[in-house]
């Protein structure tokens, strides 16, 4: 099935930035003036399908986008928002990180009603989540990086260095 967002990535409509992992584009239908999308290039329907290091980069770039927005659009704040899953309000078939420039009285309201939970309920949730969160930590690091940019000279230089170190080791009696 074709994905409208993948098409948008290819078309580079409203493109602001591009690297190997993502494009940063103006949202085609902005919620606020200057609404920006950070879109991973590789198709991923939900956040969980995006490699860890790409997510790291997406959020880092979202910060850079916010800085750019502060300095040019006169925004006083930004919301960074991922709607992950239909129940969370996701409307596209491709996971997107939204950066929404905010101004006073811009008509947008992301405030939520807080729920009151009993101590017992909180503790149950804590235990359940804590158990599952044990799996956090073995992050998929950006190992592709040396592979992605295999400039022949660099690779050779790296190899030379390794060889040099090995030679040094051999010298030790």
């Amino acid at each position, binding site marked *: 099935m074709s994905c409208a967002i993948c098409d948008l990535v290819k078309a580079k409509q409203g*493109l*602001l*930035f591009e690297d190997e992992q993502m494009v*940063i584009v*103006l949202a085609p*239908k*902005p*919620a606020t003036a*200057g609404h920006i999308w950070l879109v991973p290039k590789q198709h991923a329907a939900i*956040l969980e399908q*995006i490699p860890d*290091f790409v*997510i*790291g*980069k997406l*959020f*880092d770039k*979202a*910060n*850079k986008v916010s*800085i*750019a927005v*502060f*300095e*040019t*659009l006169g925004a*006083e*704040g*930004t*919301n*960074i*928002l*991922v709607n*992950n*899953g*239909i*129940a*969370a*309000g*996701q409307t596209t078939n491709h996971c997107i990180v939204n950066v929404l420039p*905010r*101004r006073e009285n811009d*008509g*947008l*309201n*992301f405030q*939520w*009603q807080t*729920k009151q*939970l009993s101590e017992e309920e*909180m503790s149950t*949730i*804590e235990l359940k*989540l804590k158990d*599952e*969160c044990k*799996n*956090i*930590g073995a*992050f998929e690091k950006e190992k592709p990086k040396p592979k992605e940019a295999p400039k022949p000279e660099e690779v050779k230089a790296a190899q030379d260095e390794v060889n040099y170190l090995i030679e040094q080791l051999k010298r030790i009696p």
Partner: protein
Amino acid sequence: MAEEQTLSPGDAAQAGEQQCIFCHIAAGRVAAKKVYEDDKVACVLDINPANPGHVLIVPKQHYVIMPQIPEDVLQHIGMVAKGVSHAQLRALKAQGTNIFVANGVSAGQRAQHFMMHVIPRMEGDQIAFAMPERAMNAADVKKAQQVLKKALAKAMGLKVADEPESHDEEQTPHEEKKTAEKKKEAVTEKPSPKETAKKQQPAKQGANLDDIARLLGGR
């Protein structure tokens, strides 16, 4: 605890950190329901959750606003957010998650310590993260694209030199039209001398960020 009433300006920043409840929570000095922790962040249950299982990812270092956070820490926070989201889907049978940052007072930031929200979602739970869709005319899109492209490159520390019209600011007859266009842009965005300065020294954080931080502190 007997605290001094008068603070020298130098101590004020430190005092802010000492009074920051989220610094205390992240360091474990204040009791909280911690679901994950490592050397950079602590993840705790929000005591006023939007939904049961609402998690706050709190950096251990005190950062008031997002632009102050170093790249590696922010990347780490993002990756932890994915992990927390995944945990919520599995452990709480959530049907979706929202990852949300309120960056600045007008974006709804209340605390003087940066945090990222990860909120488990269920169908029909009445939480509104829906974004209205507004139409934009092509001219506005083009203009926003031009301005933002430059500012974003600057924020990322990239060179802005590859812009076709950025080679010379001097007004030669055949360039008059271009410059006029540029001026129009400059009127709405910023004075053109600033733009020239920007091209010469790209990766430098603007003073505006401090203003935003101050704005937050003022409340």
